[in-house]
């Protein structure tokens, strides 16, 4: 080895050398671009949720416009068939004109809202379109923030969710307003009120019916239970009336549950009969909240679980190796962190089909470009790192793990297939 080069002020020295090692080379293997496409496919929720919102707005608006128009048309028809005085006719017509003017205004407003929502849908498609090799790090950063906002919204941490979205300029990429709608219902249910949940059901009647949801039925059952709980002669009467009005229609499809709940009439809320006792328990309301969350996610095409949990599970499994749980594990491995270890504990280990060797010294991958070399004691390091060491130390290699000293010429190449 030429030790002389080290004394020459122009040799590869510490500072320039580390420039090369710290900034990873920007070369991206071709399989990476395929990886982009594959990872974009994970973004169904991102595009679906705002669209469902948009669709709902369009439908609601359309229905109300149609209703108004037909009211006016019918109004004229009735007017023509009746024998009102002329003055009365004029005033009737004038009111119809006012109505149409109101409709025009509503149309304008409705269209503005729709356009905003369409814009949001489009912003998300554009966001997916914007990813490329150059900005992938930044894009992944944004993605992480989106995932965190999704988590916070599902946990009802609205303040932080809003702050983070504003701060990172991703308001168009997250669904704060949609979750606010859900929060109203959840809060009401937590207060043991079903009204807003029922209103929500009415609002989404066709969709819920299509998916054969029985959420409304469950809400009605709970209301029935609450009437039974009051435990006065009058309340039983009310409960029965309520059941006739709201529960009977579900009998055709959910007879067993209906019978089960109606039998509470024979028990008091203080009953010790386990099967019925459970129906009176306050936890039933938590069940309703969970039920609502599920229906809500389904309706908007969201995953039931927070995105964060899904990504963490997959990531932890893919990173989980027995080495990560060892004492001297490199701090760069997330699994060296106590919290990550705890989360990963019940998850499967990763699997690798091919050897991948990381140089202990340089932390670089050892491959055909930078093949592994074996010291006489069986310890393996990358050619690059060993060469550098030899150049600095006049051809002498010191094993960083065992302290063994040997000559560069004593090394042998290992072939890993």
């Amino acid at each position, binding site marked *: 080895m030429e030790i002389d080069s080290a004394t020459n002020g122009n040799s*590869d*020295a*510490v500072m320039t050398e580390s420039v090369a090692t*710290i*900034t990873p080379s920007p070369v991206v293997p071709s399989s990476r671009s395929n*990886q982009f496409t594959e*990872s*974009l*496919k*994970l973004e169904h929720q991102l595009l679906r949720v705002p*669209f469902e919102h948009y669709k709902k707005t369009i439908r609601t608006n359309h229905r109300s416009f149609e209703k108004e*128009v*037909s009211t006016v048309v019918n109004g004229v028809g009735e007017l*023509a068939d009746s024998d009102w005085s*002329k003055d009365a006719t004029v005033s009737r017509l004038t009111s119809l004109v006012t109505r*149409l003017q109101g409709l025009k205004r509503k*149309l304008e407003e409705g*269209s503005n809202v729709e356009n905003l929502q369409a814009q949001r849908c*489009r912003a998300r*498609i554009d966001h997916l*379109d914007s990813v490329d090799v150059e900005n992938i790090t930044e894009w*992944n950063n944004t*993605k*992480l923030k989106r995932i965190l906002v999704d988590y916070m919204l599902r*946990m009802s*941490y609205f*303040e932080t969710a809003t702050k*983070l979205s504003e*701060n990172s300029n991703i308001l168009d990429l997250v669904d704060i307003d949609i979750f606010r709608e859900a929060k109203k219902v959840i809060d009401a249910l937590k207060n043991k009120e079903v009204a807003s949940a029922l209103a929500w059901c009415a609002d989404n009647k066709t969709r819920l019916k299509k998916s054969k949801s029985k959420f409304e039925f469950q809400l009605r059952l709970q209301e029935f239970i609450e009437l039974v709980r009051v435990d006065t002669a009058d309340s039983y009467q009310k409960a029965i009336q309520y059941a006739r009005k709201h529960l009977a229609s579900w009998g055709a499809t959910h007879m067993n549950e209906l019978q089960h709940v109606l039998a509470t009439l024979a028990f008091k809320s203080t009953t010790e009969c386990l099967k019925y006792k459970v129906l009176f328990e306050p936890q039933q309301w938590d069940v309703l909240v969970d039920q609502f969350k599920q229906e809500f996610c389904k309706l908007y*095409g969201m995953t039931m*679980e927070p995105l964060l949990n*899904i*990504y*963490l599970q997959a990531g932890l*499994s*893919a*990173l989980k190796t*027995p080495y*990560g749980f060892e004492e001297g594990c490199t*701090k*760069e*491995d*997330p699994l060296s*962190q106590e*919290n*990550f270890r705890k989360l990963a504990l*019940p*998850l499967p280990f*990763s*699997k690798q*089909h091919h050897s*991948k*060797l*990381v140089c*202990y010294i340089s932390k670089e991958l050892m491959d055909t470009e930078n093949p592994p070399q074996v010291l006489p004691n*069986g310890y*393996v390091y990358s050619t690059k790192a060993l060469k550098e060491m030899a150049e600095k130390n006049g051809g002498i290699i010191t094993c960083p793990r065992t302290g063994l000293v040997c000559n560069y010429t004593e090394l042998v*190449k*290992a072939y890993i*297939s």
Partner: protein
Amino acid sequence: MELKSIKDAFDRVATKQKLSYSKTNEIVQLLSQEIDKALSILQKTPSSDTLLVDHRSILADVKKVFMEIAPITQLEAAEKELHAALTKYPKVLEKQLNPDISKAYRNNVEFDTHIVNQIIANFFYRQGMFDIGDCFVTESGESECSTRQSFVEMYRILEAMKRRDLEPALNWAVLNSDKLKQARSDLEMKLHSLHFLEIAQGKNSKEAINYARKHIATFADSCLPEIQKLMCSLLWNRKLDRSPYSEFLSPALWNNAVKELTRQYCNLLGESSESPLSITVTAGTQALPVLLKYMNVMANKKLDWQTMEQLPVDAQLSEEFQFHSVFVCPVSKEQSSDDNPPMMMSCGHVLCKQTINKMSKNGSKSSFKCPYCPTDVDISRCRQLHF
């Protein structure tokens, strides 16, 4: 995946929505016009009972015109077209994208919210987003994050470096000099060099030399060539940009120092230099498509997805996620372990111990042929490797 077909499908929705809107607008316009017309005729004609028949005939006319316009039918037709586009779009999404990424999710594993929240809070702090971190901690009701203060300190140092003020960084590096040496980091030398160059740039060679004597000379053991370059650069003091040492002016030096400081600071805290949360989620982004594909292919087979101890497929993470050497025996396809370590044969090819035992019939044969080359392998010359 075709992003274009998604775009096209959405454009169709947006066009139909506009069309439906203008149709409705047009109809409302038409209806108002007709009523206005009737009203103006009615109001012009003087009020008199004999004209009773007249105003009724006007109304009948309006009614007739309305019937001809058939507004409801027109609205319904417009809606029908819109409806078709609205139904199609989600189908396109489902076809082009993965409609349910939770298929590869283990439902029987529930994360402790408390731990997840701590991880998130720590993420915000290490990214320097202290406001948001604080807000999160308050809102989620978690206890104060223990690492917050350390990261505040780190960002104070980094902010100062951005202003080209090296003092806080140097103070920290000197204070942790021993630990940095242990980690084989040249951060301290790097910072001193930067400081030296700053002084030299200030046209004060003498002061720079004094600084080098005091602070840089001690690194002679490890950084001699570097010191030589630094000192030589003094010769070109005024025109460093046209000298062989122009690299000393590069902002990359500062960026590298910032990166190295972040790395070392985090490491001394027992943290990784990249945020572990962001590493894990990015790894998840790479692994999920592979796992989902596997689930799809195996959809009909009975799978113990919820209980298996090792993933059934290679998640194919990219290099930066390879934190450990993993040796997979090319013959048995098993990962090496303490009980089954990798062994190198005399020809340099590597197999794991169990495979070698098998090939030598448990040592009953003293030699066997390497499966990868024509060498006859002597068992006594196989030796264990440590990666």
